[in-house]
């Protein structure tokens, strides 16, 4: 990610942000998560929404999703996937989030309070973007294609 942004932004690229007041971008969220009291409310601030945060964030989101494709596609897509169950009101949104976050963190880290903020942000972004949209173009083992 840094390499891609470095071409345009140099040392000011994510995640270095040289001379872009990096101290103002540290909220203690990782420290709180490590202490067992994770929170995301500190990141809810319109001032954070800038090209130099949203562009790398979008890239991280898609790169992470791509890494998780083998795990998430069968979980979410297909006739018995979470999207179908959610659309059919067989599972609730909180249940879907717990299953997605657990799958994400079991595959790539640990299902722990420390990693939970990242998993929750990924899951909420995924669901707000749309599970149907995620499944478009992805085939599951049970598909006849």
């Amino acid at each position, binding site marked *: 990610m840094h390499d891609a942004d470095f071409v345009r932004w140099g040392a000011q690229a994510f995640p270095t942000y040289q001379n872009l007041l990096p101290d103002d971008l540290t909220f203690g969220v990782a420290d709180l998560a490590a202490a067992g009291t994770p929170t995301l409310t500190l990141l809810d601030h319109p001032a954070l*929404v800038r090209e130099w945060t949203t562009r790398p964030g979008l890239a991280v989101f898609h790169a992470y999703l791509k890494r998780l494709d083998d795990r998430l596609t069968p979980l979410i897509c297909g006739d018995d996937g979470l999207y179908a169950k959610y659309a059919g009101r067989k599972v609730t949104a909180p249940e879907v989030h717990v299953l997605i976050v657990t799958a994400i963190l079991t595959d790539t880290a640990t299902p722990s309070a420390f990693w939970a903020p*990242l998993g929750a942000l990924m899951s909420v972004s995924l669901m707000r973007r749309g599970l149907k949209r995620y499944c478009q173009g992805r085939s599951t083992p049970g598909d006849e294609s």
Partner: protein
Amino acid sequence: MNDAAEPGFEDVVKALVDEAMAFRTDFQYLDAATYFGSEETGADGKSLLPYYAAIAVLAREMHQYLDRNPRPDSVLR
């Protein structure tokens, strides 16, 4: 629930999801559609940009934290 999950993990996730769902999305950001196209908004028509910004800031902060405080699960697989 996965056997390897910490006790209370499910409640932690639900609380964090509630916090994330409450993010402010009702503001306009420059010419976002030009920058992001269809990635700008979600299925509900609301902006996704606060989430992408939060992912970047969080990833950066966790990376810095793990540099100072390594853990057995420091590296994403």
